[in-house]
């Protein structure tokens, strides 16, 4: 009597693979869009301090970065744990800042040189002594536009 017969042999429909490529491409594009390349390898550990009044930097390409912090674990055996300055890819001292600024200036176009900002990315645990040295050196090179990197506090 039952209208619904169970005994019928039904074949499991095969999964259509035609949309597979759509999904793969979507994932590919998603990662392509969201990935940011890190320009330089960090050799110092930097956790920027929190500040609520931060402003966003308009043009990233006008920035030169000076990292200050204690070396990461891999370099501690060689350089100790004292706060160091990292310019581009290597540990440097304040004396090298002059050359670094000159090189960064040369890399910019004539019009952008005035707008170049030096971003000081210092770890929250460093002492002001080293930061003051960097600031004094920047003043000597007349790179006066600076920015203290900070992050927005988590709400």
């Amino acid at each position, binding site marked *: 009597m039952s209208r619904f017969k169970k005994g019928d042999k039904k074949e499991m429909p095969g999964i259509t693979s035609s949309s597979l490529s759509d999904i793969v491409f979507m994932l590919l594009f998603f990662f392509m869009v969201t990935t940011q390349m890190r320009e330089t390898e960090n050799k110092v550990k930097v956790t920027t301090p929190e500040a609520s009044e931060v402003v966003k930097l308009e043009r990233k390409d006008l920035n030169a970065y000076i990292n200050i912090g204690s070396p990461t674990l891999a370099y501690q055996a060689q350089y100790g744990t004292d706060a160091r300055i990292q310019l581009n890819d290597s540990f440097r001292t304040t004396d090298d800042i002059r050359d670094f600024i000159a090189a960064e200036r040369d890399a910019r176009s004539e019009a952008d040189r005035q707008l170049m*900002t030096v971003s000081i990315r210092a770890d929250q645990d460093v002492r*002001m002594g080293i930061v003051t040295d960097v600031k004094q050196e920047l003043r000597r090179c007349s790179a006066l536009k600076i920015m203290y990197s*900070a992050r927005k506090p988590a709400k």
Partner: protein
Amino acid sequence: MGSHFGLSRRLPPMPDPNQKVEDQKVNRRNIIVVKINSADRILAGTDAIDVSQLKDKIKEFISNPSNDPNLPEKEVKQIEGYSKGTYPVSKGVISLQNDRGTSYQAYIAVQNELVKAVNELRDEFAMREFGKKYSALDEDTQKIVRDCIPQNISEAEPKDVGRRR
């Protein structure tokens, strides 16, 4: 990921060594010295205070609502583009001094409070005059607000303020 947020500052140019040292005459009442020592304690003017009190102190210092003779004087200035023409601009300067042993975190916290004080004053001014917050105004109007309430923060020559003399 790189962080692209921060506090923007302009350093004073290095003084020319050949130039005669001329102390810029700034009237005593027009300057407030904020010092941070190596133990991250803050001294604003003459009293030791906490970071949380700093903002209100700076706001009071700059705006000088009761025209106190100990707080900065105001100079009536012609403001370009401002409908009322002139505004008494405060001549107050905040001088920030730190020790070599001050932690960077404390330094940024103080800088942040100083900026916050100025931003709040600008917001209040913008609300009063234009009925909008500073950030909601267009570029030209923002400039008027900036001219009326300047952000004068001077980072003094480094000194060891923590050391006993």
